[in-house]
């Protein structure tokens, strides 16, 4: 029997790292169990000549394609958007675009403003200090003063505009539409031990330079120095409960595959919007027959993905291709509701600089714009290094039929039931995507682009896993309360994207981490009566 720990965190990704770091100052015994291992930057794709090919195999964003022992399979046959993630210390911050917008204040009040979904039980102001703290630790770059998003004060200057950014900026100016350099977690100068970006380009599947922020190189070294214990290659099967209905610990498989029980006084789940409901549903027991913390029946429901409407084309001038971080500019032109557009809510835009030669060839062949045969070389030279892209991150509203359940047959390498996704794109989201594509086409055509192609939705675009253990004050309509504690189990907390009430129209990691820090702060303030 292991000694109990004060706090047990499940998952060492974006939110698990943040909550561990914040709680470390309490000097409690904090243990984090992570199913993956530490990353080795020397093995990152951009350190080798076959850097692009790796994205189709061991460095695929899809756990089903990667199939590493650290990954768990996901049955997403019933979804037009496939789940993508990464399982390691750092989680999906190891493999993300580092685009760093945050939810707007209006995103917390969608019921009040637009009469849809629900308001959050907290507001933007509650998160403000934690956004700021998180930006400092993750290390953000950008340009303050965006008139449509004047919230951030990045400690580092924005990324270079590059060739692609200038073409996009000119087109947006011609159309009179908003654009601005994106906040990113790419270090544009040496920062807190991280080297500045040198434009490796292929930064989504991990940054060999260490310029892109991921929690394995930001939060975790600090948390470990402060005394947090991080145990890798440990996959949690279930959370156990005692006779009082309190979490008593977890059953997990250690790095040798041996089943272990780790008792804990507090359990914090940080497994993302798919992994968290999977764990709660796998923790069903005689006390909690429908899954742990699921008296509302909402565990796994209201899955929100952010359907991505992507459109791209090719200009005559050279673009940045793979010679820069993929995203450089954003637009908030269509972020807020305008019912004249035919839908409620809105979308953020991230512009994409280009692609490398292998990706360009493979995708263009699949899109049938790159022919086989004699004309292949001429057409490839017209396409390669000339791509510009527009991706709309469309706000997905919560719908209970979009959900994560347990697959009756599929299991991971430890025999633990795998998640099954059932998801459809709503009529509102589809109208939003169609509208976004029309605007994207206008921008590309204004920039002089031809051979325009569409991915709507981006099939392997399920990066943002939100809403499946939503936050609220009503135990019948939510899974966790306004400070992240489950309504049903008073020593069980959730800090990842599953607690989002609505999704906004931006990449969520900044907000996920701010929420994790906020919840940690709430816990610290309530330590004397945390379970009341």
């Amino acid at each position, binding site marked *: 029997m292991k000694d109990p720990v004060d706090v047990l965190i499940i998952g060492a990704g974006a939110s698990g790292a943040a909550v561990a770091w914040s709680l470390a100052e309490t000097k409690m015994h904090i243990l984090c169990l992570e199913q993956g291992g530490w990353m080795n930057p020397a093995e990152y794709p*951009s*350190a*080798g*000549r076959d*850097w*692009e*090919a790796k994205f*189709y*195999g061991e460095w695929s964003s899809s756990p089903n394609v990667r199939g590493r022992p650290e990954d768990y399979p996901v049955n997403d046959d019933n979804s037009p958007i496939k789940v993508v993630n990464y399982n390691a210390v750092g989680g999906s911050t190891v493999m993300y675009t580092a685009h760093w917008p945050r939810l*707007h*204040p*209006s995103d917390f*009040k969608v019921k*009040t*403003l637009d009469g849809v979904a629900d308001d959050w039980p907290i*507001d933007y102001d509650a998160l403000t200090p934690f956004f700021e703290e998180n930006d400092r630790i993750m290390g953000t770059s950008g340009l303050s*003063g965006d*008139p*449509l*998003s*004047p*919230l951030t004060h990045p400690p580092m200057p924005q990324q*270079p*505009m*590059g*060739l692609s*950014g*200038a073409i996009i*900026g*000119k087109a*947006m*100016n011609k159309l*009179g539409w*908003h*654009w*601005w*350099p994106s906040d990113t977690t790419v270090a544009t100068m040496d920062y807190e031990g991280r080297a500045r*970006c*040198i*434009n*490796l*380009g*292929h930064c989504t599947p991990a940054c*060999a*330079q260490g310029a892109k922020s991921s929690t394995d190189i930001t939060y975790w070294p600090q948390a470990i120095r402060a005394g947090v214990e991080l145990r890798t290659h440990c996959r949690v099967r279930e959370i156990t409960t005692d006779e009082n209905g309190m979490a008593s610990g977890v059953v997990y498989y250690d790095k040798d595959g041996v089943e272990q029980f780790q008792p804990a006084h507090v359990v914090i789940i940080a497994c993302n919007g798919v992994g968290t409901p999977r764990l709660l549903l796998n923790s069903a027991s005689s006390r909690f027959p429908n899954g742990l913390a699921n008296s509302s029946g909402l565990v796994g429901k209201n899955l929100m993905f952010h359907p991505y409407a992507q459109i791209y084309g090719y200009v005559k001038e050279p673009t940045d291709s793979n*010679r*820069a971080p993929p995203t450089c500019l954003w637009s908030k032109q269509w972020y*807020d*509701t305008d019912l004249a557009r035919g839908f409620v809510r809105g979308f953020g835009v991230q512009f994409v600089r280009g692609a490398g*030669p*292998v990706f360009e*060839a*493979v995708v263009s*062949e*699949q899109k049938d714009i790159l022919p*086989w045969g*004699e004309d*292949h*070389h001429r057409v490839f*030279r017209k396409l390669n290094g000339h791509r510009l892209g527009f991706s709309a991150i469309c706000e997905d509203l919560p719908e209970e039929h979009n959900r994560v359940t347990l697959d009756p047959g599929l299991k991971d390498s430890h025999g633990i039931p795998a998640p099954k996704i059932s998801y459809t794109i709503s009529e509102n989201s589809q109208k939003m995507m169609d509208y976004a594509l029309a605007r994207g086409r206008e921008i590309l055509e204004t920039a002089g682009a031809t051979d325009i192609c569409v991915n709507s939705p981006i099939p392997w675009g399920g990066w943002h896993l939100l809403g499946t253990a939503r936050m609220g004050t009503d135990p019948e309509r939510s899974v966790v309360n306004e400070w992240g504690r489950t309504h049903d189990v008073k020593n069980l907390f959730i800090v990842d994207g599953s607690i989002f009430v609505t999704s906004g129209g931006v990449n969520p990691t900044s907000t996920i981490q701010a929420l994790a820090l906020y919840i940690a702060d709430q816990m610290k303030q309530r330590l004397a009566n945390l379970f009341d």
Partner: protein
Amino acid sequence: MSADNQLTRTQRGDLRIIAAMIVPASDEYKVPGADDAAIQADMLATLGRDTKLVAAALDHLARLAGAPLAELDAARREAVAQEFRKSGGAAAATLARVVLQCYYRDDRVLRSLGIELRPPFPKGHVLPDGDWSLLDPVKARGGSMRQIP
């Protein structure tokens, strides 16, 4: 269906021919075709997890052709290739991707495209900072976030 981890001699022959139909050699651009021996060797050496689907694609190709591709005349070969591309599904897409990912990392091909023969790290790339006065119209237009009552 052939063995999981290797291609038969016939499959290798068909792979060589279909690869050349995807990317033929070009005197104009001074590049080899995807049937080049070094590129083919790269494909076979790195098939790895793609072996099964590529073998399935080649089996499908063989069924369409009814004979090794090398034995078909040019017109028949072209017709088979078109049908293969149309009906081959995920397996054919994987085969095409394997051909292209090996072709577009060959030194001779990259040199022809003006791409340096090196991984991105550690040298990286230099990016122009750009003319940030392009933002002036955005600043002048102003605007605000949606207000909460």
